[in-house]
């Protein structure tokens, strides 16, 4: 997205018909310029139709739905104004849902960025096996979320593999998925291990972009490796770290399959994050009005974060130029 602010390097207007060339006979209607404009519209048409039909209209409908109440049995829709928005304030479950969402997102982002950085720094050295390890750490990214989560569901059973390993070193592990706090830890960790590979790769690219003469200069000045990391590496890759953090939070806000498969939002509401709550309200309790209101709340979180990300990116790209 860095190049968003760049202007095209092309000047494909060489095709424009020369204006002085109007002869006595009528010029053909299909000039190259007109053909170009037509081609442009035709080329983007399928994508544009897709976005209008499957994104813009649904968002509009969601707003309309959020202003109405749906009878579960008859499916009849009645306009209720802002009742659903008032219901947000009176929903006794919403505070704990928002709390779970916040804990999940913050937990995922901290672990994901921390571990991603650690792996990138370790793999940024030249040694035999670096590519091998990069492949290993990246591999869960290509494993289907549902399969990955199912397997972790087995391993996290009371008598599963995780507690078996803990037993072997003399620790009695908890029944991970049956207690609120450990269930939250479980969904965070399975999510981080599955997705940290992407951040690792982004950080590796950023690390390789740090000019090596800076390192040499620091070494000549007698700086140790810790000083070099905190004074040179970190400041230079901090834009990437910040942008990646936002991308990771946005991704965490949309983690549905992990939670549905591992805990179904339980025990009680401990792992019911907003996206899962939307699904429950709309498709399990068939409360389409309230479900849409919650979905719009999710959308506003995602939009705020994405706009922040674009703004920051633009600032940095501009800065670099």
């Amino acid at each position, binding site marked *: 997205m860095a*190049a968003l602010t760049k202007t095209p*390097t092309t000047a*494909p207007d*060489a095709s424009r018909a020369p204006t002085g060339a109007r002869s006595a006979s009528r010029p053909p209607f299909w000039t190259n310029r007109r053909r170009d*404009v037509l*081609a*442009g519209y035709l*080329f*983007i048409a*399928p*994508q*544009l139709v*897709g*976005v209008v039909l*499957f*994104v813009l*209209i*649904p*968002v509009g*409908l*969601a707003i309309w*739905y959020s202003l109405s109440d749906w009878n579960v049995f008859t499916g009849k829709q009645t306009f209720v104004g802002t009742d659903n928005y008032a219901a947000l304030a009176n929903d006794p479950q919403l505070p704990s849902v928002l709390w779970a969402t916040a804990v999940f997102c913050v937990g995922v982002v901290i672990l994901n960025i921390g571990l991603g950085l*650690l792996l990138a720094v*370790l793999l940024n*050295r030249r*040694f035999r*096996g670096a590519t091998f*390890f*990069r*492949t*290993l750490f*990246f591999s869960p990214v*290509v*494993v*289907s979320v*549902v*399969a990955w989560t*199912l*397997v972790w569901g*087995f*391993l996290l059973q009371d*008598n599963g*593999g995780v507690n078996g390993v803990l*037993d072997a070193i003399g620790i009695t592990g908890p029944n991970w998925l049956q207690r609120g706090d450990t269930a939250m830890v479980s969904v965070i*960790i399975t999510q981080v*291990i599955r997705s940290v590979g*992407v951040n690792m790769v*982004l950080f590796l690219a950023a690390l390789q972009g740090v000019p090596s003469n800076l390192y040499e200069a620091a070494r000549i000045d007698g700086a140790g490796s810790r000083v070099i990391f905190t004074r040179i590496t970190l400041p230079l890759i901090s834009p990437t770290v910040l942008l*990646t953090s936002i*991308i990771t939070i946005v991704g965490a806000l949309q983690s*549905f*399959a992990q939670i*549905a*498969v591992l805990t179904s939002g339980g025990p009680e509401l401990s792992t019911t994050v907003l*996206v899962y709550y939307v699904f429950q309200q*709309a498709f399990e309790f068939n409360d*389409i009005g309230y479900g849409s209101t919650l*979905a719009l709340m*999710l*959308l506003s979180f995602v939009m705020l974060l994405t706009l922040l990300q674009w703004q920051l990116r633009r600032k940095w790209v501009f800065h670099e130029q």
Partner: protein
Amino acid sequence: MSSKSKSVLRRVLLVTALGVLAIPFVVPTIWMVAASVKPLPEIFKSPPSLWTSDPTLSAYSEAFSFQPFARQYVNSVYIAVLVTLITLLVSSLAGYAFARIRFPGANALFLVVLVGLLVPSEVTIVPLFQMFKRAGMINTHWPLILVTALAGPCVLATFIMRQFFIALPAELEEAGRLDGLGRPALWWRIFLPLAKPALSAVAILTFLTSWNLYLEPTVYLTSPELFTLPQALTRFTDAYGGDMWNTQLAAATMTVLPVLIVFVVAQRHFVEGLAHSGLK
């Protein structure tokens, strides 16, 4: 200690640390494969092991007899392939036009398309369900194909293609024009062949997105013979609601291994392709 043996020691430490860190990344997959060939009672035996003296493939055959698993496999494959092909076509056309053709409103329309990147599919699923219900498309594959191929990952693909085409030199069009090529021919004969890296990134991303879709099939599909793989994986419970562990793991193995093998073979393309998804 000499500096040489010191650096050897450091390397050993580094590899050991990475090896320990890699355990939770690799062992679950290995355990999945190992447990899928174990007899049922052995799966939760303590201490846990990755080995069985009595391997059996019965869970694999059971996976096919308990659910229409072969059918579900075909569903996932054909939907992912179709979605990927449509996305390649739609996104390379739109990406080319946004990058190389000047037409009135191009910037505004590009912003409209970018909105598609901003809105998560979890937000639009409620109204989309109502729209498809009205169109009589619930419990068909149409919603999965149409929405995935024209919105969602396709918008990201359009963006990736535009960024790729925008960086190519202007002389390409001029040379093509001299040869009398129109826009469709320029796109097909000159730009697409140059765009292989971007196209393969898009293909990998889109295929994986479609292959892993879970919320959408859960919402749209109700008949088991229409299910896709992720959805089918969660339905391996016997009549009493008890999990059929080894059958489930066998099915999961069959879902995961082909993709994993392709990944290991072409890992460079995957890593680069998915790093592009970080754009999102």
